[in-house]
């Protein structure tokens, strides 16, 4: 299936004029995004710009007020969250949401379960090992409870689990927040593995060096509006972006 998608040059994910209001607050205003297979696509903007809201709309946690969402050409706008996940969208959360009362292995198994269910194939141990090594979790005892991992390790584990479910696209919400520089490198390593597998990544992130370093293209949001979409260079040199974002709250945050 992955191959047919590439052959037809379809976008993995496409948002068409998606809008969302929260009682007067415009969290997403006429958003149009197209993401290609294996692409790392950045979504940036100041706090409250509507980034997480867009992820939630893509995942079906919120319904869009207007607009359509397509996954590999199929309209998924009206589907419930679990169906979208089975069709190949994985996501991680701004604050990790693992099975907190289970051990690490059970959490990993969740991702593998999804692959078994949707693609009728198993995940071999070498693949798991490669991912755990990339996340520097290879020496951790997998029978430990998730709570015994550090915050950063939990976030890495969430990404490992997402990759193991073999999605078409991963939605990753601020993976680097609260992580040190070494752990950020592990995230990059995990993304590289994902991309090699043809998985696209939609990345929300405030750490600009990370975003500018690994993204193929970036969309900048402000107050729910899509200011521009372009390569990291184009984004960094765009006056409107500098005014709205890079010159504003971003400095205060970095």
């Amino acid at each position, binding site marked *: 299936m992955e191959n047919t998608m590439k052959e037809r040059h379809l976008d993995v994910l496409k948002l068409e004029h998606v809008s969302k209001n929260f009682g007067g607050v415009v969290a997403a205003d006429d958003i149009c995004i197209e993401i290609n297979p294996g692409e790392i696509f950045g979504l940036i903007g100041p706090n409250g710009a509507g980034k997480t809201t867009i992820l939630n709309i893509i995942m079906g946690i919120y319904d869009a007020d207007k607009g359509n969402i397509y996954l590999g050409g199929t309209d998924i706008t009206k589907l419930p969250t*679990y169906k979208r996940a089975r069709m190949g969208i994985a996501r991680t959360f701004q604050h990790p949401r693992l099975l907190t009362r289970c051990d690490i292995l059970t959490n990993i198994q969740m*991702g593998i379960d999804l692959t078994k269910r949707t693609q009728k194939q198993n995940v071999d141990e070498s693949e798991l*090992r490669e991912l755990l090594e990339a996340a520097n979790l290879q020496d951790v005892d997998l029978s430990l409870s998730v709570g015994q991992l550090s915050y950063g390790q939990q976030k890495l584990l969430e990404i490992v689990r997402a990759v193991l479910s073999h999605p078409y696209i991963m939605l990753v919400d601020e993976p680097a927040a609260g992580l040190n520089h070494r752990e950020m490198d592990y995230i990059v390593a995990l993304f590289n593995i994902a991309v090699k597998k043809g998985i696209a990544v939609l990345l929300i992130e405030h750490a600009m060096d990370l975003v500018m370093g690994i993204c193929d293209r970036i969309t900048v949001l402000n107050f729910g509006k899509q200011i521009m979409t372009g390569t990291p260079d184009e984004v960094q040199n765009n006056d409107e972006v500098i005014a709205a974002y890079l010159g504003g709250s971003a400095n205060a945050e970095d």
Partner: protein
Amino acid sequence: MMKGTRKGNLITGRYMITLTCITIAGCFLPLVLSSYMLRVMNIALISYMCVLSVYVLLGMCGQNSFAQAGFWGVGAYITANCLLKLNLGPIVSMIIAIAGTALFAFVLGFAFFRLKQYYFTFATIGLMTIFNGLFMNWKEVTGGALGISGIPPFAIFSFEFSNETSKFFLIIFCAFVVTFLMKILFNSSLGRQFMAIRDNELAAGCMGINPLLTKSKAFAIGGALCGLGGALYAYLSGYLSFQVFTYNQSTMYLIMIMLGGTINPIGALIGTMIISLLQEFVRPLQNYMQLIYGVGIMLLMIVQPEGILGGIKALYGKYNERKTLRRSEA
């Protein structure tokens, strides 16, 4: 091999060894117990199956139900009707009771789980009230206030489980099988789906789990366990009265599992046994029973909210920590 990936063999693992030991030890009980105490034990083991339904629902899936004694009753009345009205065999009647109660619970779950968390819990209180009303008033099926009497004992071919000891072996065998199945469920993908819903329903949905369907499945498995308990109860007592299948009994199941701990079936067993025996030994203090429970539950929630098993696990963890500390010092 990565550390901790080996989950241990199901048959030779610690769980199975513990379960087998407890069962074998239990098999000696008829030698030491009076027939009255053996009856108490039989009822306790039947309660244990209903408490296991709470273990699946609450312990694994995070859903709290006050209707389990109602499903227990459904299982018992199905058995009685299959035997007496439809003249079916005892084994077939038992299977119909299990499957019927499970199916019934599944359908109800599909309707009720549209409500989330405590809204669902409140709805099950209403459900329990309706169950009890039906048991009391639907004369054709439940015998109304008079109940149903003359239920024959369980039998395989010509062997009848008619005395207390043979009934005990039947019930402890069922308890053994069911507890074993719990471990299989725990290690299965369905078990993981339950636990994902318990720990975070939103994230579970993002991992392809249909919350409504999955919770209904947990409700159905709980129904099957209560159905089995109900069938065994019908065979054990030979007489069914609506006064047994009450809201209070449902609450008792919850108290039992909270006392024992929700982390595994052994917790359910410990809790059930303690409460069941307590009920016997403090029978002279009957009037103070409610007070004892009330204070006991409050103390439990303050001192050891994870139940007895949770307490043991915490102690064991501390012991291990100290051991590794000592080792690293040496």
